[in-house]
């Protein structure tokens, strides 16, 4: 018989009893306090672009064919486990007045309201005059004159990293330093926080793009969180606008180390591509759905307001289809998606347009 030392035996017995004790302490499961609309589905034939549920601003953004807008839709809705919604899944909704979905959690205590917003871009022209402040994290985002949300930025992701909850704490905000009207969009590359440093993010580049920010991917696949593009019809010929750019003092690599002799530059481009599903930062330059590109050729510093007027360069062999999307992307550090750039780089943009 093998000899087991009494100590080892005693220690095992104690460990097993401690584990058993821990298991015995488990209480009944708490009722689900969550009240999300997780999916919102209508037949693809009614859509010009994929539906987006903006969980940060509690909006359901719809991109509808004109007939669907006229006749209304009957969406299928899925919710957090055990939650209920009114109007119910499958009920018809009409866009003669504002539609609000109210979700109640299984626990009963929590309610969440989602406003339905039918998004369509009438005129492809922006001067960034109207900005809203997000309720909880206090970052700004630009909206159309009717309040529609067509632009987005990395701000919702930055909000998770514990920056000061005020508009100036975020990389995208409005500024009075404008070319046209009274406001313009200001994009500033900011230093990462201690929290973001843990996940290897040492800086936040300022970004502004047509499309949506998918917060669910912000940690896991940040490059997929930036969903670029809005439904587009017609033929794009030129991309125009005004900007100013001041690169920050010291360019740094992903690890936060300075890279001597390198100056930050900005990125401003428009991409026209086929389909209803948005491209993101992983494929906006490489997808074979891309039909045409208009890109600012030189992203170096410009002290004064500088006009650009760039023709769309149509890629030979690529054909337009019925469903098209247009992305416009701007960043205060062109390698910001790789978390490289110079803290303090500042890009101001105003009066953008797609000339058809």
């Amino acid at each position, binding site marked *: 018989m093998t000899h087991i030392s*009494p*100590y080892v035996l*005693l*220690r095992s017995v*104690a*460990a097993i009893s*401690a*584990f058993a004790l*821990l*298991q015995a*302490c*488990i*209480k*009944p*499961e*708490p009722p*689900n*306090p*969550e*009240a*999300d609309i997780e999916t919102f589905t209508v037949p693809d034939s009614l859509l010009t672009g994929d539906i987006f549920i903006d*969980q*940060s601003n509690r909006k359901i953004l719809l991109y509808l064919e004109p007939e669907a807008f006229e006749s209304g839709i009957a969406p299928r809705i899925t919710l957090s486990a055990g939650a209920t919604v009114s109007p119910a899944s499958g009920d018809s909704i009409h866009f003669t007045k504002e539609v609000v979905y109210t979700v109640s*959690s299984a626990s009963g205590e*929590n309610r*969440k309201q989602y406003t339905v917003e039918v998004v369509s871009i009438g005129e492809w022209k922006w001067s960034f005059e109207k900005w809203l402040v997000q309720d*909880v*994290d206090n970052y700004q985002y630009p909206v159309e004159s009717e309040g529609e949300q067509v632009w987005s930025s990395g701000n*919702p992701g930055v*909000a*998770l*990293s*514990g*920056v*000061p909850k005020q508009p100036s704490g975020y990389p995208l905000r409005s500024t009075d330093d404008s070319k046209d009207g009274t406001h313009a969009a200001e994009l500033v590359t900011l*230093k990462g*926080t*201690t*929290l*973001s*440093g*843990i*996940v290897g993010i040492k800086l936040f580049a300022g970004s502004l793009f047509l499309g949506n920010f998918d*917060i*669910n*991917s*912000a*940690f*896991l696949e940040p490059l997929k969180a930036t969903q670029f593009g809005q439904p587009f019809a017609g033929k794009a010929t030129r991309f125009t606008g005004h900007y100013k750019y001041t690169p920050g003092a010291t360019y740094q690599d992903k690890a936060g180390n300075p890279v001597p002799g390198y100056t930050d530059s900005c990125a401003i481009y428009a991409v026209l591509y086929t389909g209803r599903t948005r491209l993101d930062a992983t494929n906006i330059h490489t997808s074979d759905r891309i039909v045409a590109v208009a890109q600012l050729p030189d992203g170096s510093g410009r002290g004064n307001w500088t006009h650009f007027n760039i023709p769309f360069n149509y890629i030979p062999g690529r054909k337009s289809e019925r469903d098209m999307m247009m992305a416009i992307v701007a960043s205060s550090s062109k390698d910001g998606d790789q978390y490289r750039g110079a803290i303090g780089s500042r890009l101001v943009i105003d009066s953008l347009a797609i000339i058809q």
Partner: protein
Amino acid sequence: MNIRNIFLISILAFGARAQAQIHLEHRIQAGFNIGGTAPVGFPNTIRKVDSYRPEFSPSLGYELSWRPSATHKWGAAAGVKLDYKGMTVKDEVMYFHTMITMDDGSGKSEFEGAFTGKNKTTVRNAYVSFPISAIYMPNDKWRFNLGTYMAWLFSANFHGNVSDGYIRNGGSLGEKVAVSQAEFDFGTDMRRFDVGLQGGAERRVGKKLRVTGNLNWGLRPVFPSDFRGMDFPMYNIYVTLGVAYRI
């Protein structure tokens, strides 16, 4: 012979007289701490404990015990110990409220949210403890003790990760963010001072050797009240299993 010498002699004489009557015992204690730094009564946000393992947590100390005479059953003891207290727990949580605050000198960053998914926590703290006990020796074999302890933390480890789940920004109504793995380290947030109750039993197994078992129950939460990493208090609850050797 000056006054100082007289004073010294009388102390020695008194000491010798006292020695003849009272019974003092010097002992070296060695053992391992097994237990947990844990809430008393689990919150319902902890759904499952997947595994538990004690960390290598030795305890080494010296104790002086005193009884009015060698045959007296009651006495008292005081000691000093080096105590490691540690464990690794893997568990699953649901809607677990947390707030992480970090300050790197240049500014404070904060994140508050509710996490659902897996958690792994490793604790390994080193304390200098000062236990004080009443002792009871009903016979030659057994010895019981009950008392309190005070402990100062000099090396703190409280870290781990969350994985395979999601966190909601701000709380259960906030937007959901998928998390594959994120590390946390709350070591520097821990309180430096712990106080609690302790008691146990010993059985003689040799001329000078006894096997011992002693429960140490911390009464002070290991994190300060303004710490929001976990929204429930946690205590040091450890059993020391070991030996005591009379010297």
